[in-house]
């Protein structure tokens, strides 16, 4: 999210697309997790590019609003069609197997981390490739990017699709972890949660996205009594961050990194 300067406020929808793909393939066709996960990634990538193509002419606020709309539409489709479990959801999604063993609990966390690791590696690789450079350039200055020969349309769609694919992978992991998914798991408030993650962490860096997700997920765990007020907390967090530090904690010219650097320099001096 944010790599090419596009804001997607419907990320939960793509998580949903991935989760549903995985769930349907696993329960109806008895496919293993190792087939469902890539399938979920591919399907959300494709749907992401479609939405990307449709909304290519939109910038800034208009794009953001369109993605919110998309989120609602997807949720209603899940609710309406039997295929997606309608209002009951899909139950009995199997846990992934490694050598015949079911992965659950802590092992599942390890698996998720491994996949997160791979996803980070891929993101870093893309970041340094021509694609990443093009994204960066488009975010900085669209007109100039066009004039130096970057096909802005193509890369914007691509950025959108890659973001959707990551959402889809997350969705697949979620589906196989919970074993049960229902349309309301992917409604708009979750998009806001995802948004608050990237704003807290830093909207344009990989490190920022990861740090942000940890903080936003851990906060309600720490302040359990405040669970009911979670959405208020997220919203407040977004507003405070935007006022105090719009780049996020680990964004460009990150305060945290600067602090660490400063401490390192200090210790260097005292030695």
């Amino acid at each position: 999210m944010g790599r090419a300067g596009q804001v997607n406020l419907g990320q939960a929808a793509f998580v949903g697309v991935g989760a549903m793909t995985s769930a349907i393939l696993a329960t109806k066709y008895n496919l293993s997790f190792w087939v469902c996960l890539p399938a979920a990634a591919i399907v959300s990538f494709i749907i992401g590019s479609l939405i990307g193509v449709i909304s290519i002419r939109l910038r800034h606020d208009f794009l953001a609003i369109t993605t919110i709309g998309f989120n609602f539409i997807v949720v209603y489709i899940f609710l309406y069609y039997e295929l997606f479990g309608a209002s009951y959801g899909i139950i009995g999604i199997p846990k992934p197997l490694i050598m015949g063993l079911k992965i659950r609990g802590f092992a599942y966390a390890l698996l998720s981390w491994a996949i997160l690791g791979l996803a980070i590696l891929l993101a870093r690789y893309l970041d340094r490739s021509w694609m990443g450079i093009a994204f960066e350039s488009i975010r900085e200055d669209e007109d100039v990017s066009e004039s130096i020969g970057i096909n802005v349309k193509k890369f914007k769609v691509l950025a959108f699709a890659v973001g959707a694919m990551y959402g889809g992978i997350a969705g697949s992991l979620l589906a196989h972890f919970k074993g049960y998914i229902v349309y309301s798991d992917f409604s708009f408030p979750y998009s806001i949660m995802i948004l608050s993650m990237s704003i807290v962490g830093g909207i344009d860096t990989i490190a920022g996205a990861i740090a942000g997700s940890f903080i936003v997920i851990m906060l309600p765990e720490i302040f359990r009594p405040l669970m009911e007020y979670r959405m208020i907390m997220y919203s407040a967090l977004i507003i405070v961050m935007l006022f105090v530090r719009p780049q996020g904690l680990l964004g460009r010219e990150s305060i945290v990194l600067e602090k660490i650097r400063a401490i390192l320099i200090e210790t260097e001096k005292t030695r």
Partner: protein
Amino acid sequence: MVEDLHVYYGKIKALDSVSIRIGEGEAVAVVGRNGAGKSTLIKTVMGVVRASRGRIIFEEKDITNLPPWERAKLGLGYIPEGRRLFPYLTVEENLVLGGYSISTREELRERLEEVYNLFPRLRERRKQLARTLSGGEAQMLAIARALVAKPKLLLMDEPSQGLAPVVVDEIFKKISELKESGQAILLVEQNVKKALEIADKVYILETGRLVLEATPEEALRNPLVKKAYLGK
């Protein structure tokens, strides 16, 4: 070549039937006051702004409906007003981006080398972030970034903007060097005196309309130009 170009921003007419022609290796200047439509003209040629009517012909090809990146591949290079570098990238990274359409590593190396030879100061500062450059250096980098792709026609929007007079002289010396080496240039400038020094042909734009097409000598003799633009 630009033919009968009309551009609207909403209902406001920014360009009204403007036709200009740039020959091979020619430096053409379009001068005029603030809001005369100079930047609009150059942006329309690049394709960043769409023409409402009229045609843009480049090397006998109608490019009016091509997106900017296609035009860049055909050989248009654009130096935007206010330089618009990538501030958080280094000088070299800015140049590499300018060579985005170059496919091989060797060719890119070669092009960078050529550009550094033209602007030795940029070579010294290659590892520096673009935002740490002085105004003059930044303008040179903006020019260099456009030159990496070896454009057949260079579109320059107000290269003198916001620069000290000494620096303006330096930049224009570079532009005139480029012109001597056979680079075709479309220059848009408020600094009429400087523009006249290097141009083969000059157009004067007033509120979206062309009011004069002349050689620099003729323009200098023209009493209207003297009065309105040269303060004599």
